[in-house]
């Protein structure tokens, strides 16, 4: 497709010059971003005193790797990452399988409840999470199933999926509504049943939207704090956010700001690597699929 064509494009000076303003704008923004994040990265190897003297990046007293040791100290970090991975991968998969068909139907067909469902979904997004989560907690905690690890995990995944259904559906709506109907018509003429048409043709066509919303969902669930804080009653269930935000907080409370930035980097790095890995893999995979 277009992207790959461009990647292999030979160098053409006239074209590049035309694009120059674009390059400048992007470069300025990128330099600013890198300066900021680079500062955090640098600060994580500095000392608190140097940070507050404005000498975070001078490293006058050398590189302080012990910040990382201090931030890591005691916390079952690997377990938190494992939990987050389980929750995000499973929830994102279910979300797409549940929301893509719903979004397609809502975008394509006029029926009585259509607008009503859409509006309900949108208003649900406006309801503060606290108001949704606490009543649910009362119910679920009353059932007495939270003491079981497997049940706890299932409850968390169902909640992650449920909470994100409105968002994901509304997000995908536009992507389906913008795809021309000529495809379904062509498929119908060829005798392909509509549901099959959806999975074979429409679903791959909405790939850019699906990838995007999956990245958002993934990062949302990976970084989710409030739900897991309340529902993950044991350390065995805790995902990254409550586990590692604890790290950030404890560094802050003890006035160890260098350690706090180290904790930030520990939280950030795996997420970032996953982000790069995920976005490229999925885009590559789906694009490949569409050609075949």
């Amino acid at each position, binding site marked *: 497709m*277009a*992207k790959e064509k461009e990647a292999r*494009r030979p160098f053409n000076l006239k*074209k590049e010059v035309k694009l120059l303003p674009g*390059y400048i*704008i*992007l470069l300025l923004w*990128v330099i600013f*971003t890198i300066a900021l994040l680079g*500062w955090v990265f640098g600060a994580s190897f500095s000392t608190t005193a140097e940070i507050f*003297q*404005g000498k975070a990046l001078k490293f006058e007293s050398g590189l302080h790797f012990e910040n990382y040791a201090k931030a890591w100290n005691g916390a079952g970090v690997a377990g938190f990452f494992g939990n987050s991975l389980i929750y995000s991968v499973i929830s994102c998969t279910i979300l797409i399988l549940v929301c893509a*068909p*719903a979004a*397609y*139907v809502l975008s*394509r*067909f*006029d029926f009585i409840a259509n607008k009503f469902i859409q509006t309900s979904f*949108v208003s649900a*997004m*406006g*309801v*503060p999470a606290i*108001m*949704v*989560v*606490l*009543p649910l*907690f009362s119910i679920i905690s009353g059932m007495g199933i939270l003491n079981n690890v497997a049940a706890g995990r299932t409850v968390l995944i*169902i909640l992650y*999926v*449920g*909470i994100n*259904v*409105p*968002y994901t559906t*509304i997000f995908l709506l*536009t992507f389906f*509504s*913008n795809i*021309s109907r*000529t*495809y*379904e*018509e062509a498929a119908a003429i060829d005798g392909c049943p*509509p*549901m099959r048409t*959806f999975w074979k043709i429409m679903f791959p066509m909405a790939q*850019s939207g699906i990838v995007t919303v999956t990245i958002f969902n993934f*990062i949302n669930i990976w970084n989710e704090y409030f739900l897991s804080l309340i529902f993950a009653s044991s350390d065995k269930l805790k995902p990254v*956010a409550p586990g590692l935000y604890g790290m*950030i907080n404890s560094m802050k409370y003890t006035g160890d700001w260098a350690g*706090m*930035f180290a904790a*930030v980097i520990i*939280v*950030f790095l795996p997420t*970032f690597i996953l*982000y790069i890995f995920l976005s490229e893999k999925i885009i590559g995979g789906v694009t490949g699929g569409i050609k075949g």
Partner: protein
Amino acid sequence: MAGGLRQRSVAIRRYGITYKGGIYLKKNKTMIVVFLTPAVLLFLGIFLYPIIRTVIMSFFKIDGVTDSMDLWKFVGFGNYTKLMSTSLFKTSFFNLFRIWLIGGLVVMSLSLLFAVILTSGIRGKKFFRAIIYMPNIVSAVALATMWLQYVYSPRYGLLKDLFTALHLDNLAKIQFLDNDHKFWALLFAYCFGMVGYHMLIWLSGIERISPEYYEAATIDGATKPAQFRYMTLPLLKGVFKTNITMWSVSSVGFFVWSQLFSTVTADTQTITPYVYMYMQIFGGGNTVTERNAGLGAAIGVLLSVCVVIVFTICNRVIKDDDLEF
């Protein structure tokens, strides 16, 4: 499928996309039911009871958010009228409005600009995309600390150094975190983090537009800006709607940044309805204050209503069915 794409663009040019209903699309009640049921069931399961409870709660005075119903005290519209007469709540709503409107304008235009540049055929697209989106995956705690302790510092801050180097001494002297500038400092830092997210939404919309359109337009002699104005923008209407909805939803939940820009106790420049709600539900700061989860619920209801209004207006104004060519 490559043939399909060409066929598609031909079909679009021939019939337009202003196509409603359809021959085969009418007879599919089973499909509607089968495709919708899982999503609707999950929605009902997770949201219905809490939403109804929230609406009911907003008419009561309730101390603890999980108190049993026999401890609730009916106050009718009391919570709503109390909110309307509380100047701090009005301040918080005004702040939210400023964040939504001004921040929205800034974020929407910047993110669209980036998306357009990224799809204009520049090199290193993946690199730029990854870097611009990156702030989104850093925890807000870290981002806010970075802005507060580094960028805005009146002693060694990035902005101070930058303005000093450019000999803009008046700008270098600004105390970005005093009461007069704090709101703008907060808003700018927040926007910086949000641009990448909305850029990705624009990007996914633009990438879905078939490149054949542009090739055809280029052959017809249309310039890049003209292509943007007459092709990209109209085709992005739906994505624009998504962007506005998502921006409104995330603005409504504006909380963490506020808290980080004013630790322990809230601040008139940074307070938002969500922060105010939090204070009403869990108590504010270190003092044990009177709590009223009913008031918090009323705020929740008001915020939801705002989102619905924005969404409805969007749907009225931007009809993504009538794409013009």
